[in-house]
């Protein structure tokens, strides 16, 4: 298993270069003229302004030249400057990453805990009404469009019942705590702002639940299948023969084993969460990377699009790597298998 991890590590630089090259090439195929978003359509006729803008934004020079410059800059941590925000893309992303991470981590918790719970019920009561219901609930999550679900949830919980606050990370009237980590839950606590913490938590509930539900389907499906495999094993009968109760057998013996193969979907889940977060952030006005990407794509902000795509690819690679490591670490048989 260690070999798999090492091999993945060795392949990573090549994949990264592939990602960078692919995104760069993609940006070259663009039909829309990015100059429009920089200097406006009216100035396109003015050769002087166009030339100045091209020089300013590095749009002159041949494709190979620009590619070399892009890769060189990238190697120095420079993703270029956003046409739209006029800030370095890396700065933009660094500012927005914590919001996305906070949402994705919360959604991951909802999705995995909920999915595992549903899978336990469904495997323990296989073929019963409870099993069918649990699977349907999980499946609905992956079949409902998150952007629509977010909309409906906002309407039901904030407009109709006023149980939860509307979009955003904090109440509009609230003063944001000084950004230390960028995680609103952590920052409010650091600032000693109890009410702010509760407010941030209440704002997080809906987007995290909507996003979490969307990954519950794959988590439930995977964990259920592996629970059913495990529950037919002799060591489960053995645990019961020891006099262990149903719950103990289920959690200590069945789940402990079933989660190991289920770990392989962590990376896959991450891809789902990224997809979902792009849409959920848009609905909930969540100032994260997803809504940044949407804004960038709408305004043909190529440095920003390229930057988000590369960072997203890097994040995906890391998620897959972590999946392998977690898988290797969780199974005692793998730990020794060099």
């Amino acid at each position, binding site marked *: 298993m260690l070999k798999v991890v090492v091999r993945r590590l060795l392949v990573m630089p090549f994949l990264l270069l592939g990602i960078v090259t692919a995104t760069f090439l993609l940006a070259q195929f663009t039909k829309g003229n990015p100059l429009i978003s920089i200097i406006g359509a009216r100035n396109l006729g003015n050769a002087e302004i166009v030339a100045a803008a091209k020089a300013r934004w590095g749009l002159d020079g041949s494709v190979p030249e620009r590619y070399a410059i892009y890769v060189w800059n990238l190697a120095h941590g420079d993703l270029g400057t956003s046409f739209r925000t006029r800030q370095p893309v890396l700065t933009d992303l660094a500012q927005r990453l914590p919001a996305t991470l906070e949402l994705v981590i919360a959604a991951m918790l909802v999705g995995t805990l909920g999915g595992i719970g549903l899978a336990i019920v469904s495997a323990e009561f296989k073929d019963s009404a409870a099993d069918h219901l649990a699977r349907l609930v999980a499946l609905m999550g992956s079949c409902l469009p998150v952007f629509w679900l977010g909309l409906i949830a906002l309407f039901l919980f904030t407009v109709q019942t006023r149980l939860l606050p509307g979009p955003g990370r904090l109440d509009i009237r609230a003063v944001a705590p000084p950004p230390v980590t960028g995680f609103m839950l952590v920052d409010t606590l650091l600032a000693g702002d109890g009410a702010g913490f509760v407010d941030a938590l209440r704002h997080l509930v809906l987007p995290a639940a909507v996003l979490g539900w969307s990954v519950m389907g794959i988590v439930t499906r995977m964990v259920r299948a592996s629970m059913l495999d495990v529950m037919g094993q002799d060591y489960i009968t053995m645990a019961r023969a020891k006099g262990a109760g149903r719950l103990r057998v289920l959690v200590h013996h069945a789940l402990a*084993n079933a989660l190991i193969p289920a770990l392989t979907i962590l990376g896959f889940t991450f891809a789902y969460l990224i997809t979902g977060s792009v849409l959920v952030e848009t609905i909930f006005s969540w100032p994260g990377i997803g809504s940044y990407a949407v804004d960038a794509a709408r305004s043909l902000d190529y440095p920003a699009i390229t930057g988000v795509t590369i960072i997203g690819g890097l994040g995906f690679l890391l998620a897959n790597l972590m999946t392998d490591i977690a898988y290797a670490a969780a199974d005692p048989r793998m730990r020794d298998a060099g």
Partner: protein
Amino acid sequence: MEAPLLDIKGLTVSIPFRDGERAAVSNVDLSVRRGEVVGLVGESGSGKSLSMLAVMGLLPRHVSVSGSIRFDGIELCGAPERRMRALRGRRIAMVFQDPMTALNPVKTIGAQIAEMIRLHNPRLSGAEVRERALGLLEAVAIPAPERRFDQYPHEFSGGMRQRVVIAIAIANDPDLLIADEPTTALDVTIQAQIMEIFARLREERGIAVVLITHDLGLVAGLADRMNVLYAGRIAERGPVGPVFAAPRHPYTAGLLAAVPSIDDVADRLYAIPGAPPALQNRPPGCAFAPRCGFSVPLCHASEPALARFGEGVVACHRAAELSLSTLSAKEA
């Protein structure tokens, strides 16, 4: 006479099929006295394991069990899960067939033994549990128990794992040990070592054992009495010595003839022709009749009842007239 430790009467285990239930075990009586080793012999599908899982209360929910299973005076058939849980692992323990799959691969050996101790002695301290677990590893002759304690099952050989399984089974000094084919998955030399452990356990701790097996050699070496099961029914039962010397049921005789022995110079090993009937199409008469060389029309028409013969019982219409003791491989 002292009441038996385990007294099964009329045990029937039925499995649901699309067109209704079928009895995989029907009307089986079986008793085990304290400190006694009883063999339960039969081919796969004969219902040996099912009846013992019924004793443990470990059959899937949709399998129905009827009859009476009394353990030390307590009725187990239909007993609530709570009562079963208090007995399982504490007074009745089980050794499984395949040690490669009977141990939880993600927990250390020590943790798995400790779990058994803790489940039934919740007040013991961690140190006490560990000490007892180490003692058990020693009792089943595992070298360097201190080092082995924190290892995982995959670091053990098959024979060593089976010792661990036995250590777990005897952790709470049970009165009854159900051993389901405890040596089938092991090499011959390891088999002998495991059987030695069983023999010692019985001598030192007075544990009664139900030995489920298809290996008559094991029964001869260890058991006091034996029950031969065919197609979910008792075919023959009696003390080991007389049954081996003079089997009354053609099936028992067949099993005995199929055992290779050192002084047997036959160049071929004999086997019973055919295979046991599937659960879905058991014949109306004696279930063994289609494979039996002695069958007469009566055998195909009506099912024989168990009848007493000497020290044992036999379910065969022709038990009185046949003399099977002289049957040997060469005559067949």
